[in-house]
């Protein structure tokens, strides 16, 4: 078998199929379904068609039952319903409705009666004959639909029940432009995004520059300090901001109002635009910093030295050399922050007061009205500006990356004032972050923030001893639910990631490249998009209700897994590119099958990538909520959603308690893994590799 060309490729093809189909199913299908749904426009059926559909459904009943049902419904019709049926019957017979349809119902009912009386005998008969059917058509479609459900296709059932038909067009996209509340929200979103992007990108760049050029005191610690908010549960920063700067905030009320009498906290607080900006900047800073830190660490310091030796001062070098080289990275970072800000509905909901944003509209439409069509269109709208910005800015620069492998920072010392400024910036940001986390910890143990600052451990326990609050959230139960999800999704996701990386780098082929690309989509699309996609795709897949996943644990776990598998894939591919493929070929020459090669040769070597992928899925599973919030049902309460909901109703104690628990778990896991990495067998191999590299 393995002698023939097909035989050699068969195992690879099978593996690709086995792994590729789930990827297609759980990444491509939801995104595609969402896009399709965003174009679906429902219109109320015209009366004639409505009548037709109703007649067809009635025909499905046995004659006896049909007569019975129609008579019953007709007799039980209320006056108002009857009046509307009369109007419909008139229209169906080609007559105009002579009374004012906007008049009070009493007047309309009276008018209907007189209209009928004024008709000539033949017409009146025809109209009155149509009334029973009209009653069913207008008001009893739903019971009728459920009666004949087994005899209808799912689409026909929906059509009968809703009385609407579907066309495809850009109506929902245009709603954003047409409706004033949407335009208003969009304008707020753009304003927010513009300011957040500018400030965050600038700050992240200065931090990355300072840390990589040795201009920030304690650079390595500073780096960790800046990145800590990455592993935060949702709306931690917004919640802390409210606790500190809200109407009952520690700083605004206790300090500035009560102690110093400087302000009235009810008026001057951080709710609204400024609060959201602050929260968004602090949340977006770590990811922006990662991009720019990566860029700055790979910049060749020799270029700055070359500029200096030719007479350029620090400022001239920065402007003419450092900044232009960082441009591609700046564009990437700015685009990311822009997307993060546009798609953020958590912070505006917690601290945004009455300021509507587009992402908030999306959330309301989904949660409040299950309007998947409009939400999908809005979700696409959220991403479009960012893509445009990215394309536009990319045209300006010339190359995508200016990296060098033998880089090292310039050894020319940074001027004193620059060093002082950047150190101050870095450490004040880190200090503020520390204050935020301290506030969250404090909030977890305080009875009622702003009113009763006494200590209580009961936000953590199952005893609801906090007066005045009625909530279904008791203790920190939701955290264990999240933990279960994360613990299931993470290891499967880690192995899947490595498998995909293996297929892409060692088995190769177009199909595998497509799979690897698809896996990246959830990275560049906001979580909201991915969440809506899952609802649309799996609520009623292929019309088979039994396959529906909504509200189940499975859909949440799958969403977590496939939404974050890209990290492991990227790490795995990078690692495989550095490892010699000859090892794999040697194994093949010695007779190992594809599965054996993967399990015994590749997987052990890729432990670090698999661990990284697993860890990322775990952390994200514990903390992310923008996708999951749409997927959970009434029985399902992962902590991330619970935190968001408690925070948005000002039940801060519970939100803080759950946040603290999540933080402890996440840091414990990360710390544990770091220890294993340093002392385990893996590190021995690293040491060997590094020694070999030095000797070479």
């Amino acid at each position, binding site marked *: 078998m393995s002698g023939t060309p097909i035989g050699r490729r068969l195992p690879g093809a099978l593996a690709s199929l086995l792994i590729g189909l789930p990827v297609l199913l759980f990444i491509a299908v939801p995104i595609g379904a969402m896009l399709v749904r965003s174009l679906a426009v429902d219109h109320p059926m015209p009366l004639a068609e409505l009548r037709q559909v109703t007649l067809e459904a009635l025909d499905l009943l046995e004659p006896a039952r049909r007569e019975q049902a129609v008579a019953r419904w007709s007799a039980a019709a209320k006056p108002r319903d009857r009046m509307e049926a009369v109007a419909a019957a008139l229209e169906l017979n080609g007559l105009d409705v002579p009374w004012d349809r906007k008049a009070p119902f009493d007047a309309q009912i009276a008018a209907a009666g007189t209209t009928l009386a004024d008709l000539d005998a033949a017409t009146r008969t025809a109209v009155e004959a149509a009334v029973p059917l009209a009653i069913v058509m207008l008001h009893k479609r739903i019971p009728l639909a459920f009666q004949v459900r087994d005899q209808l296709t799912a689409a026909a059932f929906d059509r009968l029940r809703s009385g609407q038909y579907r066309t495809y067009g850009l109506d929902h996209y245009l709603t954003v432009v047409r409706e004033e509340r949407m335009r208003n929200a969009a304008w707020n979103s753009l304003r927010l995004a513009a300011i957040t992007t500018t400030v965050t990108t600038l700050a992240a760049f200065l931090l990355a520059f300072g840390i990589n050029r040795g201009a920030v005191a304690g650079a390595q610690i500073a780096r960790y300090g800046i990145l800590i908010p990455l592993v935060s549960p949702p709306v931690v920063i917004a919640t802390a901001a409210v606790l500190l700067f809200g109407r009952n905030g520690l700083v605004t009320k206790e300090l500035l109002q009560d102690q110093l009498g400087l302000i009235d906290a009810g008026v001057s607080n951080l709710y609204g635009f400024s609060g959201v900006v602050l929260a968004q900047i602090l949340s977006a800073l770590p990811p922006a910093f990662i991009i720019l830190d990566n860029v700055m660490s790979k910049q*060749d310091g*020799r*270029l700055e*030295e*070359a*500029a*200096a*030796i*030719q*007479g*350029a*001062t620090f400022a*001239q070098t920065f402007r*003419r*050399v450092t900044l*232009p*080289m960082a*441009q591609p990275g700046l564009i990437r970072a700015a685009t990311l922050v822009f997307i993060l800000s546009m798609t953020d509905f958590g912070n505006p909901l917690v601290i945004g007061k009455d300021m509507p944003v587009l992402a908030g509209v999306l959330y309301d439409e989904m949660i409040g009205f299950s309007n998947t069509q409009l939400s999908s269109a809005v979700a696409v709208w959220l991403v479009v500006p960012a893509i445009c910005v990215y394309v536009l800015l990319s045209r300006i620069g*010339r*190359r995508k990356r*200016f990296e*060098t492998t*033998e880089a090292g920072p*310039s*050894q*020319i010392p940074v001027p004193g004032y620059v060093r002082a400024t950047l150190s101050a910036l870095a450490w004040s940001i880190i200090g503020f972050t520390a204050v935020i986390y301290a506030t969250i910890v404090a909030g977890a143990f305080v009875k009622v923030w702003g009113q009763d600052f006494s200590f209580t451990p009961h936000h953590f326990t199952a005893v609801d001893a906090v007066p005045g609050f009625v909530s279904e959230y008791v203790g920190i139960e939701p955290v264990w639910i999240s933990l279960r999800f994360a613990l299931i999704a993470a290891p499967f996701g880690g192995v899947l990631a490595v498998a995909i990386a293996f297929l892409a780098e060692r088995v190769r082929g177009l199909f595998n490249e497509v799979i690897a690309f698809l896996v990246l989509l959830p990275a560049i699309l906001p979580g909201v998009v991915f969440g809506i996609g899952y609802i649309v795709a799996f609520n009623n897949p292929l019309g088979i209700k039994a396959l529906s996943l909504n509200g189940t644990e499975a859909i949440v776990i799958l969403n977590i897994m496939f939404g974050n598998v890209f990290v492991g894939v990227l790490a795995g591919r990078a690692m495989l590119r550095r490892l010699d493929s000859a090892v794999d070929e040697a194994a093949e020459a010695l007779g190992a099958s594809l599965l054996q090669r993967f399990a015994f040769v590749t997987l052990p070597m890729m432990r670090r990538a698999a661990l990284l992928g697993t860890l990322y899925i775990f952390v994200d599973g514990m903390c992310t909520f923008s996708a999951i919030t749409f997927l959970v049902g009434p029985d399902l309460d992962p902590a991330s959603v619970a935190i968001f909901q408690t925070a948005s109703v000002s039940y801060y104690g519970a939100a803080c308690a759950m946040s603290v628990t999540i933080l402890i778990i996440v840091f414990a896991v990360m710390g544990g893994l770091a220890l294993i990495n340093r002392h385990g067998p893996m590190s021995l191999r690293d040491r060997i590799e590094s020694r070999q590299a030095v000797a070479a």
Partner: protein
Amino acid sequence: MTAIGFTDITKRFGATTAVDAVNLEIAPGAFCSLVGPSGCGKTTLLRIAAGFVQPDGGTVRLNGAAVTNVPPNRRDVGFVFQSYALFPTQTVAQNIAFSLAIKRRPRREVAERVGALCEMMRLQGLEARYPHELSGGQQQRVALARALISQPSILLLDEPLSALDAKIRAHLRVEIRRVVDALGITAVYVTHDQEEALSISDRVAIMNEGRLLQVDTPLEVYLHPADRFVANFVGSMNNLPCRVIDAESVDVGGVAVPVRNPGNGAGSHGSNAPATLSVRPEHVTLTPPGNGGVPAVLSAISFLGQTVRLSLATLDDRQLAADVPTVDWIGQPLEPGAAVAWSARAGLATVFPGAPDGLSSDGATAP
């Protein structure tokens, strides 16, 4: 007045001493190479001259003025980097014009000077290209042009050719020397390739482990190495154990061999002190046995094209390489196994104190 003066320069990085009390003076207009193995401190010394690195001790003088605390952008030097360090976001013309653009020179002057340098470095037609669109050799010429446009009196080059392949290297190093001569500037050229250093320099400075071992003309360094390391770093060298007879001869296997004594204590230990006899293969002369040469056995004959390398085995089982020009070898009746005797050309064998442990005799230094 010296162009560049290092006085007692010391630099430490953590526990390592990269440069150890180096004293060096370079005359104006001279082309001086700093040569040594990786990690010997030559690049660090160069970067101290440029001002990228501050020394821990000692002073640097450029054209007579002390510049130890002067930042790089105020020193009148040009610098060519090993990796070229061209600005990737700027064209060739913009790269070259950088130092003039910084000083806001008028556009016409800039264009003129850029044109002149492009012509000198044979870069015509490439002015609008970006660095990543050039070959390695072209990039290096741009780097050179960029360093020279502001007419510095001193040019510092940090292994400028090591990223290029051998043919281009041989060609470009001559061109660098030519340009530097035409402009009359002082050049310090760092390289680990001793052949490169010997071929184009007025002076060669050999460094090892942070210390300066010898500064001399290429010929002197080659023929009269001052130090055991220098002797073995440059060219091929045989190293044999011997015993001191007096200041000018040593005892090798019972036979006296005339040596030159670089005066580092080989003769001061008194007679019979163990020492090392270092002689280059081409300076070993063969004599018929019994004529006063050291007896040995011819163990192998290797034809290397221009020379024939004879491997001689001494009576105490040491290997010795002797190179004979092929034209002189034709017609010699000697075969492997023959008994021969060897000596060294007058004044071209050197004695160093101490036994030659770790040094081999087949022309290479053991790791």
